[in-house]
């Protein structure tokens, strides 16, 4: 087994835009396409990724145990990895919930991710919000970056900042996922459009994910939405992004406001009066 995988950091600057949801879904989608994937939770002290994957009750060792300086406390890296019960190609390396971002150094992160590339095709690093130590750790070992943002000025400005910081530390050409787009709001000019966001950030678009209530339900259940037998539009968007990451040329979903139907037209008629 000598796959030399890619280390990809998933980051955003702002919190709450969907980094962890994106990480879980992309990890699961790539794994379902036959790739060996490991998700590395770099959000020390605010660990979430285990919940989204429904693996929270199986965390025994964390990344810190694998790095312990004390020989007797140390575990092997593969002991800390949790194999997903549904998808054997997917593993999680959990963050330590009891410590904070300073518990690990960028050099340690680099060596861990490098070791993981020996046995995995994709090492996806779920970056914490912010631009401080946690962010620096998360990008340390990465060779590629995915920036997640939502169509809001605050999220876009923060994304712009992290793109600048990554470029300055040598992580060039990040790709963009625009999350939680609401096509009807864009149509009414109440939300930034895909073009507005791309105009400012000026990086390559990897995918657009529409707002979807299913995210809340699947998060609570610990089942990434791409697992669904009848994927919603958002789940389909994540699956498409995964295929683009594998080098396929997948057209972007057309996110248009669905036809309102007869009743909708009737209602609209009344509203107009």
């Amino acid at each position: 087994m000598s796959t030399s995988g890619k280390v990809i950091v998933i980051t955003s600057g702002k919190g709450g835009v969907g980094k962890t949801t994106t990480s879980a879904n992309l990890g699961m989608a790539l794994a379902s396409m036959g790739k060996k994937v490991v998700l590395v939770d770099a959000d020390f002290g605010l660990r979430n990724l285990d919940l989204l994957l429904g693996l929270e009750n199986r965390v025994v060792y964390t990344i810190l145990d694998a790095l312990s300086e004390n020989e007797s406390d140390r575990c092997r890296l593969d002991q800390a990895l949790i194999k997903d019960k549904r998808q054997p190609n997917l593993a999680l390396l959990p963050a330590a919930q009891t410590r904070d971002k300073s518990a690990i150094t960028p050099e340690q992160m680099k060596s861990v991710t490098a070791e993981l590339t020996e046995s995995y095709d994709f090492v996806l690093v779920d970056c914490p919000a912010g631009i401080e130590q946690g962010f620096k750790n998360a990008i340390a070992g990465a060779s590629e970056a995915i920036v997640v943002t939502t169509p809001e000025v605050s999220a876009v400005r923060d994304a712009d900042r992290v793109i600048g910081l990554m470029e300055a530390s040598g992580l060039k050409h990040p790709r963009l996922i625009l999350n939680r787009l609401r096509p009807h709001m864009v149509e009414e000019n109440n939300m930034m459009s895909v073009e507005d966001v791309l105009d400012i950030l000026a990086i390559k678009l990897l995918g657009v994910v529409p707002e979807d209530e299913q995210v809340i339900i699947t998060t609570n259940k610990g089942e990434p939405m791409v697992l669904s037998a009848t994927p919603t539009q958002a789940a389909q968007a994540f699956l498409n992004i995964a295929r683009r990451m594998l080098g396929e040329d997948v057209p972007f979903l057309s996110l248009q406001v669905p036809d309102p139907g007869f009743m909708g037209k009737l209602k609209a008629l009344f509203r107009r009066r």
Partner: protein
Amino acid sequence: MLTASSVHQVIFKGSPEGLRLYLPEDTAFDEVLLQLQQRIDAGERLWSGGGKVFLECGQRLLDGAQIQAVQQLLQSHQLRLTQVGTTRHQTAVAAAVAGLSVDRDLEEIQPIQASSITVAEDPLYLQQTIRSGVQIVHNGTIVVLGDVNPGGELLAQGDILVWGSLRGTAHAGTKGNEKALIMALNLAPMQLRIAKYVARAPEDNPAPGQAEVAYISEGTIRIALLSEYGRRR
């Protein structure tokens, strides 16, 4: 003469012998490295074939690891660090250990008088997107080939020219020159400042899709189409 104590940010200057790299004296080293990488990225296309670099760090203390970090960054762009100019003994020793020649005969640092009108430096040419959180300070004119995004800031003692969209903040004539100009292909800034005057972007800004220029007239900042402004002169 330019000295390390008179620069606020990392700056490169061309000279017949090679590039001179000035490091600011009181900026954290992490920030210095970040700025250095930005400057290298922004000017990459113009330095064909690399060359020699003289590092001027004035009173700034640099240890061996820091000199090495600068050296590596330069090396990755085919630039070779050959000489270090410093007034500090420790820095000189560290540089010598790293096998670099040392120049300790820098002229005495002169305190800068903030009020005196100084001669502006050469224009600073940057080919990059100025993203949120990036601040460029220069004692001369700044030329940006790219966009200035919201949250990005340009502070120039001279004019500011943006060959792209100016959506961030720009301050021209920082030392009080009211004749300074700000111009952009698409002028849609958060805030404009010229000398001591400040202007906000109008709420209902119909971007004309043409290059515009901001200047001071009768004590306020005005904006005109660049084509009309030129005709009036």
